[in-house]
């Protein structure tokens, strides 16, 4: 089929302005803010010193939030131009280190050999286009109660490395959308000890495709960790009873009879407290099964 109606080179189409053009379109409904894109961590930290400055990872959650005018930063400091914060590498001790500004798609591809369960988790976040922008640092810092990464970080017993300190995952998450991060503190990398076996089992919330319940099970030489996302009103948490049972015997049957108290579970359009509590058990069993 020939495109007779188009100009000789269809790529020239944008030279033909339509009517009187508006300066900006409907998508730009956010409050006004300045934008900076430093190329070093030091410059980013300096830029974030400004009043009401906010870090911008991939923006996949932040930009929709800004469109709703739920935040009014004075300046967004993009972390996407900081080369030292991007990439995946395996250190000498075997730990997997992921730069804070590394998109999910890169983790899904590059960690597939070194830490397949974590790579699989990254490959289940959002959708392909979101995974090309969204970053681990942004996800972990935001600590959405239904996000996938917090389960992987907590389940792996990872260490969150910021520009000022290193924080163990067990100490990092402080409930829904809350972490120990200070104003202006940047997650520069996350360091994952690689378990003997692990699996992330995600049950989709059908609309958002976040986790209705997601369970990350990691089996290390010194014990099993079970982290649950999507389920609790307190955000990601470790299911210690399951860990204890699995430490005795790492088999799905070891979880038989174990259940989680529905009282603190999230209840919404997509599932009751009891349903979420039930799914935690089912997804944990499936994660164990997949880790065998």
């Amino acid at each position, binding site marked *: 089929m020939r495109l007779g109606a188009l100009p000789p080179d269809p790529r020239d189409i944008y030279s033909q302005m339509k009517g009187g053009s508006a300066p900006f379109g409907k998508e730009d409904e956010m409050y006004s803010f300045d934008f900076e894109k430093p190329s070093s961590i030091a410059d980013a930290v300096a830029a974030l010193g400004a009043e009401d400055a906010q870090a911008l990872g991939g923006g996949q959650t932040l930009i929709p939030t800004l469109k709703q005018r739920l935040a009014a930063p004075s300046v967004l400091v993009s972390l996407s131009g900081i080369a030292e914060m991007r990439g995946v590498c395996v250190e000498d001790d075997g730990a997997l280190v992921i730069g804070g500004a590394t998109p999910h798609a890169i983790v899904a591809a590059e960690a597939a050999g070194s830490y397949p369960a974590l790579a699989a988790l990254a490959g289940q976040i959002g959708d392909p286009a979101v995974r090309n922008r969204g970053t681990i640092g942004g996800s972990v810092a935001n600590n959405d109660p239904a996000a996938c990464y917090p389960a992987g970080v907590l389940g792996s017993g990872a260490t969150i490395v910021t520009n000022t300190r290193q924080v163990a995952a067990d100490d990092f998450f402080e409930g829904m959308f809350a972490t120990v991060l200070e104003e202006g503190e940047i997650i520069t990398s996350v360091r994952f000890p690689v378990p003997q076996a692990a699996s992330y089992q995600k049950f989709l919330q059908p*609309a958002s495709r976040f986790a209705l319940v997601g369970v990350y099970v990691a089996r290390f030489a010194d014990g099993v960790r079970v982290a649950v996302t999507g389920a609790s009103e307190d955000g990601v948490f470790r299911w210690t009873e399951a860990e204890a049972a699995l430490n005795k015997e790492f088999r799905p049957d070891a979880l038989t009879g174990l259940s989680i108290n529905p009282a603190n579970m999230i209840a919404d359009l997509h599932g009751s407290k009891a349903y979420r509590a039930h799914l935690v058990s089912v997804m944990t069993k499936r994660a164990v099964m997949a880790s065998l």
Partner: protein
Amino acid sequence: MPKDSGIGASSKRREDVRFLTGAGNYTDDINVAGQAYVYFLRSDIAHGRITGLDTSAAEAMPGVVKVFTGKDFEGVGGMPCGWEVTDKHGAPMQEPAHPILAQGKVRHVGDPIAAVVADSLEQARDAAEAIDLEIEELPAVIDMKAAAQEGAVLVHDDLKNNICYDWQLGETDDAKVNEVFAGAAHVTTLDLVNNRLVANPMEPRVAVGEYKRGTDEYTLYTTSQNPHVIRLLMCAFVLGLPEHKVRVVAPDVGGGFGTKIFHYAEEAFCTFAAKACNRPVKWTSSRSEAFMSDAHGRDHVSTIELALDADNNFIGLRTNTYANLGAYLSTFSSSVPTWLHGTLMAGNYKTPVVQVNVRAMFTNTVPVDAYRGAGRPEATFQLERVVDKAARELGVDPIALRRQNFITQFPYDTPVALTYDTGDYNGTMDKLEAAADLAGFAARRAASEAKGKLRGLGINCYIEACGIAPSNIVGMLGARAGLYDAATVRVNATGSISVMVGAHSHGQGHETAFPQVVADMIGIDESMVEIVHGDTSKIPFGMGTYGSRSLAVCGSAMVKATEKVIDKAKKIAAHLLEASEADIELKDGQFSVAGTDKSVAWGDVTLTAYVPHNFPLEVEPGLEETAFYDPANFTFPSGAYACEVELDPETGQVTIEAFTAADDFGNIVNPMIVDGQVHGGIGQGIGQALLENCAYDENGQLLSASFMDYAMPRADDVPFYGVDHSSQTPCTHNPLGVKGCGEAGAIGSPPAVVNAVLDAMNSGGKAVDHIDMPVSPSRVWAAMNS
């Protein structure tokens, strides 16, 4: 052999080229020199009284052109309702005012209170935040049954209650109905909900109003399925403008599904404000705004009772439905639970006694109106669910029970006001049984069970009524519009043809399918025929596209106009061939004299029409004809659907493993497009059945206010569908013998899915009678563990 052009050919869509290359022209792509932007300040509460509204600070904000409130629209008409329903006592429905901007009260989350026009949208939105608004919050009425109670909070203070109408169709003698049920060998009763939906065409609504001071002319660009209807309603009922001074253009429209039929306040506002501000005014809905300002769909709560005799013949059917209309009457909202719903309650069955009762409620929610199927999905869902439940209760095969009760003689007068002209329900069911390989189901179930999954098979039938007409009858039923359509066939001198049609194409492929008809009638190449639609300045008139009516109604007008053109062309040809007009035949673009080798080509005749040197004196030059077509009856597409699901008993997750549709659409012009229409309808039906749920909390806050909570079907939620439309009983009363195919999939699929889920649950040993849509994993799990 499939044809390669003309009627019956799967011609590739010509409109695709522009859409595939980014060269479409959607309303938001239109920017008019000097345009300003409007941002609507909308209510964030469901029900309240405006006690203070001060816009002075907003007016002083940078870039603000003007701030409008309800005061600016005092004396201007409100949004009209196009169908007056008469209740069962003979009284007209209660019809509250529906202002463009709130007058004293807000009645749903999203109700527009003020509108800020500014140089940029950001400035308009900034200024809207500076409006000083005080609202006294009132208790909200959300639940329909609560709304009906004596003493319920009134949505409209000037109405006597929240009941728009209490309507009945079919058997009016309650005693007779009671007698049938009392004498029944078996009665199956079912309470069910038809879940509230949001149509969500992928293109949000947009309106651009323009006013030319020099000529006192208005242009409205809008995302509409029916620009003439918008012009008529806006001019005659809302703004009081002369129709000839108003042009309404609906360019490329990114899907409608009913929700772009209606005349919306934003359209009237942009038209009004363009003059008031002396600048073009543009509004583009965000998706979040769409959730609280596009008319919603469905939202019925029903009880249905089916009476059977000892031989399992259906002897009586009674339904009681509460229908939610939302806070105001949207354009055709009143007709949906009544004439588009009650009339279909007989379904495919020869039930002799049918009584339909519908009470329609005002609540503090977004207005509810037609969404793909509009009333017919609600009727089909009730009927096909209760038949399925009856089969389970009686321990009989659900297909056999249906076949036993099928209507087999046509025409058939139903007890609910319709006359089905034609159909072959057994033949269509035969097609389904073959296409869906029902014989192989047991083996497939065993394979699922071996994986620890439950498998279910759901069957249902549907009948629908399309091309609602004729105008004199619908007028008696309360329609405030005619339901004909129009087409002008303009033959150019060189023989190419422009056809101006009143139907609007927003995905249906009219630009391809309509030319197939005209080209076929004349015997010329399809590429010589072009369809013009969507612009009131180019098209004589049209009622637009909805109710699967375009080809059956507008297409028939096009056929009539083309016949007139051919008749005139034959006169010219007869003159050129020096023969009698009666002897002229038209075939393959050649006029010939019967029984001779004398002929003249289409293009020579058309050229002669415009260069009438050698021309019959009694014939006018030119070759252009217009026809209006008012159908004699509805058309009645019907079908039988089968759905196979797999159910994970641990999580309640349901996956659609197979879906097969056997439809009878009568004659088919473009099979490829018809398949696509069925696919899309099934996709939406599966969405309703498994995923979609527009929910409010008890305070009237919309819980599913974005795609984060309103689950749209995605590619991995659905399978490839099997589609068979080889069962064809042509419509008896339109020239093409076509019935309409746009809504069938959405009508026929929800009960198939739910029947399949219940079959799966019951096969797992869990006796479950019913589960409400959407059949979410949590609901399935709860039902299986109750």
